[in-house]
C-alpha cells in the first residue's frame, strides 16, 4: 500500500515539462556588476537610451539589468551578490497566453520565448504577467540623433513606440550560427557562438549554450553545481532556462 510518505514531491512533474534548448548559467558570485553586459546588449540589440527623466521613472529599456540588494546596516552592511536579470526564456511563460495578438509566443524550434514586434499592439499585459519584470516597453519614439543610427545592428529590428520588447537570447546570433552550421551540414557546436552579454562579461559570469545535450558546458554547469544553482521563481512553474549560481564552496 502506498503511504503518504512514499510520495515524494520531486516526483510531481509539471505537465509538458521539458528541458529547453538554449540556456544560460549565471554565476552571481563572480558577477561584479560592471554593466558591460548591459552595454553590450544595448549595442547589439539597438536598444534606445531614454534619457534622465524616463530612466529614473522605471522606463530604462535595458534588456538586462543587474540587481543588487542590501543586507544589514552599517557597519555590518552587505551588498548582496549582483543578480543579472533578463528574460528567463521560460518553457511555460506566463507572458505568452495573455497577449491578445499572439505577439509573444513560444518558439517550438528554439524553445525560446519570442517577441514579434510587428504583431504587438501595446496592451502591456505580458509585462504585467511576467514574474521577472524583464519586459521593456517603448514608451516613446526615443530619438537617436544622427549619426548615431549608423551603429544600428542590421540583424535586429529597430522598434517604434508602443511596442514591447525583451531579451531574445540574441536570436539573430542563434540563427546566424544555425545557418552557417546548416550550410556546412552539421549541428551548431557548443560554444561556437554566444550572446552579446556573455561575450562581453569580463568575469565570465554568464555562460550561454545548449542545454538539451548532456555534453555541453552549460548542461554540465547546471547539473554539476546543482547544490547551489537555482532558477528564479521556479515555484511558479515557469520552467525558466537560466540557472543562477551563488558561490559557496565546491
Amino acid at each position, binding site marked *: 500500500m502506498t503511504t503518504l510518505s512514499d510520495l515524494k514531491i520531486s516526483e510531481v512533474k509539471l505537465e509538458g515539462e521539458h528541458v529547453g534548448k538554449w540556456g544560460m548559467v549565471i554565476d552571481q558570485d563572480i558577477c561584479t556588476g560592471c554593466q558591460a553586459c548591459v552595454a553590450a546588449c544595448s549595442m547589439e540589440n539597438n536598444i534606445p537610451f531614454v534619457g534622465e527623466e524616463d530612466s529614473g521613472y522605471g522606463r530604462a529599456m535595458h534588456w538586462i539589468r543587474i540587481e543588487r540588494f542590501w543586507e544589514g546596516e552599517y557597519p555590518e552592511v552587505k551588498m548582496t551578490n549582483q543578480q543579472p536579470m533578463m528574460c528567463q526564456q521560460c518553457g511555460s511563460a506566463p507572458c505568452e497566453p495573455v497577449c491578445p495578438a499572439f505577439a*509573444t*509566443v*513560444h518558439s517550438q524550434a528554439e524553445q525560446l520565448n519570442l517577441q514579434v514586434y510587428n504583431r504587438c499592439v501595446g496592451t502591456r499585459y505580458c509585462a504585467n504577467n511576467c514574474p521577472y519584470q524583464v519586459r521593456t516597453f517603448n514608451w516613446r519614439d526615443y530619438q537617436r540623433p544622427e549619426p548615431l543610427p549608423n551603429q544600428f545592428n542590421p540583424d535586429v529590428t529597430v522598434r517604434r513606440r508602443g511596442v514591447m520588447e525583451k531579451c531574445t537570447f540574441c536570436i539573430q546570433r542563434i540563427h546566424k550560427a544555425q545557418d552557417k552550421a546548416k550550410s556546412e551540414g552539421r549541428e551548431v557546436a557548443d560554444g561556437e557562438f554566444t550572446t552579446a552579454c556573455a561575450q562581453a562579461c569580463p568575469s565570465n559570469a554568464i555562460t550561454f549554450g545548449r542545454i538539451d545535450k548532456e555534453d555541453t558546458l552549460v548542461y554540465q554547469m547546471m547539473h554539476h553545481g546543482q547544490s547551489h544553482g537555482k532558477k528564479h521563481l521556479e515555484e511558479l512553474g515557469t520552467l525558466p532556462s537560466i540557472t543562477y549560481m551563488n558561490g559557496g564552496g565546491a
Partner: protein
Amino acid sequence: MAEKKSTTSHGLLAVFPDLEPAANAVEGLRALGVDDACMNVISGVPVTEAMLGRPPQHSNVPRVAMGGAILGFSAGSFLAFIAPFMYAYPIQVSTQAYVPWPPSFVLLFELTMLGMLLSTFLAVFLDSFFPNYRPMKYVPEISDGKIAIVVECEHVEEKKIMDTLKKFGAESVKPAEAKQL
C-alpha cells in the same frame, strides 16, 4: 361618394377613450360577424390580447432568437475550435493546448449571447416590418392613451360596423386613411 369608396377599400378607424369600451367593441364586432383577422387594435400602451379578448398574436421573435443563438454558437465554435488550425503554422503559447477548454467556454458563451440578442433585435424588425415609412392608418391621439380599432371587413356592411363602434363608446369613427406618420 369618393369618401365611401375609400372606406370600403381602407376600412374604418374608431378611437376609444379607454380599454373597457374597446374590448366591448371588439366583442360587438365579433358578434356582428366581423372576423378577428379584420380587426387591428392600436394602442399607446401594451394592452395584451387577453385584455381585449383577442386571439393570441403570433410572434417569430423567440424562434429567430433561438436560431441566432445557434448561429452565434457556431461562430464561437469556429473561433474556438477551427480558427486555431488556420494559422500559417501552429502557434504555441506557454504550455497551453492549441484549443484550451476553459477559454473556449468563454468564447462560446459570449458569441451565443451575441447571436441571440442580435437576432432578437433583428426579429423585431422582421416581424413588425420595421423600418416602414409608408403611409399608414393611424391617429396621433393613440400616443395620448387612446385605443384605436381599425376594421377592414368587406362582407359586413360598413354602416353596421360604424354603429356598433359608436354604440360601444367610440369617440370618433372615421374612414381609415393611410397617412404619412
